[in-house]
């Protein structure tokens, strides 16, 4: 079974530029998550999709971050414009159903973003 795919693996941009990350979840996984992991911290949820609908985006900085999951499969996360504090690893994860129901999440390798 193929895992969660993410690209690019690394990205370096200057502040105020825009950037986009791509995620392909495990086939058949209805739930997709984007997490932000700042160095030295645990991952923090940015947005969660159930199929192609947003379930939770309460911690997404909507003035600069956006995400979509067209057709309920692949997802893109965009930052525009980027700030220095956006430097982090962006992790995509997917799960069959509700983690609250005990199901585990499967994570991609992440995209390491450096904003200069």
């Amino acid at each position: 079974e193929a895992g969660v795919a993410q690209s690019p693996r690394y990205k370096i941009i200057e502040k105020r530029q825009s950037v986009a990350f791509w995620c392909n979840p495990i086939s058949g996984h209805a739930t997709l998550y984007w997490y932000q992991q700042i160095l030295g911290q645990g991952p923090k949820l940015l947005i969660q999709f159930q199929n192609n609908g947003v379930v939770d985006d309460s911690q997404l900085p909507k003035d600069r971050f956006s995400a979509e999951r067209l057709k309920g499969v692949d997802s893109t996360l965009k930052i525009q414009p980027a700030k220095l504090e956006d430097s982090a690893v962006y992790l995509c994860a997917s799960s069959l159903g509700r983690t609250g129901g005990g199901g585990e999440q499967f994570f991609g390798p992440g995209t390491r973003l450096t904003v200069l």
Partner: protein
Amino acid sequence: AQSVAQPEDQVNVAEGNPLTVKCTYSVSGNPYLFWYVQYPNRGLQFLLKYITGDNLVKGSYGFEAEFNKSQTSFHLKKPSALVSDSALYFCASPAGTGANNLFFGTGTRLTVIP
């Protein structure tokens, strides 16, 4: 609020010795608890989970965790540490009752010394 805490940023253990990585939780009702491991430049990998049943949960790579309701703890253990176990370990729980997303602890860096 549902949350977990990892009181130790760093744990060092000699190869072959038993290891423990600590986690405490603050979860109402019956907690669901997870352990994930993160190797350098790789995503998080699921190790094990506690849902219900036996307090001792066995997981991948020889790891196990003990759920202790009276101490609200879910410590990760392994009888004999390997150098290859050196990594960043995260305890996690669903962010709310029935929630899908996970709340992660701050992580504990385990270093196994040859």
